[in-house]
């Protein structure tokens, strides 16, 4: 046995990949894996090999319906959003017309949502749904390498709309760096639509993006990515009640939570 094999339990890693260890051994391997990049890579290689054994097949619309029911039953806060377009499952008949994803549809049909998902929502939920929809649009756009607002000519009226909202007296959050320099503003309208103004944000290098966060709750909530600093105005969805916001620099595509040492500026809407 080589020194490497004495240091790394490669045999056990292989058996672990097959879920063939006893519970106590499984726990020991997981403890080792948590701190060993070499064994993580060994395991990942085995998992990739094993994944090649499993054939693809059409996903079941009935199982998807159960998943959505389960999620709704657990939290009751499944955000509704406008359906981008009915996405047929492989092998499933295409619906004659796109239908609202969570609207009335035949039980078991592709994309059919459980009835209680279409319940009447509280006002903040409607705003949250708008935010979720906007995030989906951004996430979807990322697949094409295009972030909403990255091209000024695509949304020529945003700057005018933001100016009108400011003139109308809508709240504006001034985002400032720790040393007090104002680098961006967020205009919050009473419709849930907001405008992110990148007044003086430095341009990020390729592969990075700014991301806007709401900081009023126990955990930061992403309000979406807002470009790399070259987009003067970006439309964002701002949930009702939002006052405190921050902008961070993240990898392209955005992050689930703001990277602590990458928070550029923050401020409150007044």
């Amino acid at each position, binding site marked *: 046995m080589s020194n490497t094999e004495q240091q790394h339990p490669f045999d056990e890693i292989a058996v672990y990949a097959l879920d063939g260890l006893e519970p106590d051994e499984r726990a020991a391997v997981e403890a080792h894996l948590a701190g060993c990049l070499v064994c993580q890579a060994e395991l990942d290689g085995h998992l990739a090999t094993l994944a090649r054994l499993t054939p693809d097949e059409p996903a079941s619309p009935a199982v998807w319906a159960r*998943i959505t029911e389960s999620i709704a039953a657990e939290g009751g806060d499944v955000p509704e959003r406008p359906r981008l377009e009915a996405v047929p499952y492989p092998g499933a008949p295409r619906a004659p017309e796109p239908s609202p994803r969570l609207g009335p549809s035949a039980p078991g049909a592709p994309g059919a949502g459980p009835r209680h998902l279409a319940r009447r929502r509280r006002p903040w939920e409607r705003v949250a749904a708008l935010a979720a929809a906007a995030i989906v649009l951004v996430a979807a756009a990322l697949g094409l390498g295009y972030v909403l607002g990255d091209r000024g000519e695509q949304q020529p009226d945003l700057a005018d709309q933001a100016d009108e909202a400011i003139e109308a007296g809508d709240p504006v959050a001034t985002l400032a760096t720790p040393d007090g320099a104002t680098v961006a503003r967020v205009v919050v309208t009473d419709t849930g639509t907001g405008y992110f103004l990148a007044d003086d944000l430095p341009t990020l290098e390729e592969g990075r993006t700014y991301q806007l966060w709401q900081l009023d709750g126990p955990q930061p909530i992403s309000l979406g990515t807002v470009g790399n600093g070259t987009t003067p105005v970006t439309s964002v969805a701002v949930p009702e009640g939002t006052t405190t916001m921050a902008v961070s620099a993240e990898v392209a595509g955005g992050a689930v939570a703001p990277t602590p040492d990458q928070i550029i500026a923050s401020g409150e809407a007044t």
Partner: protein
Amino acid sequence: MHESISQSSDASLVIAVGRQSMAALEELFRRHGGAVASLARRVTRDTHRAEEVCQAVFTDLWRSPERYDPERGGLRPWLLSLTHRRSVDLVRSESARRRRQEHEAALSPMAVDEVESVVHTTALADEVRRAVHRLPAPEREPILLAYFGDRSYRDTAEMLGLPEGTVKSRIRSGLASLRRALDVEGVRP
């Protein structure tokens, strides 16, 4: 927009799931739900339980998308590893009486043949089946018993009449051989 979300990478969609996007979860289910169900069905050998596993895997992804680390590999291998773990745990958690009955049956030489039969009769792609059978029997049997037969390596050692350490080392060498055999047969990663 249909094109956009359907062309987004798995990693981007997982980020969107973290932002409570059911559209992203739906797309990921469309891409990987069939494979997840296929593996769960093969391990549990029960359609109803396989659906339970599939539901649990995607519900977990909704709850904790941050557990997926794209730097460590593709989403499908990760989802399938969760699927296999849940399936195995489900099968192994059945009553002690049934476990004893299964154990007694498992010790018969037929068990290996039964697992081989599973590989023959289930919906493995032809090239995958050929790759599996490229492996020498001493490497193939422990992998089949553990992966498709939900046997621990100790059970496998007992069934095959081999030392436990030998079974573990054969599983490791067998996985390396399997990767090469899949390459030879052109089974895409």
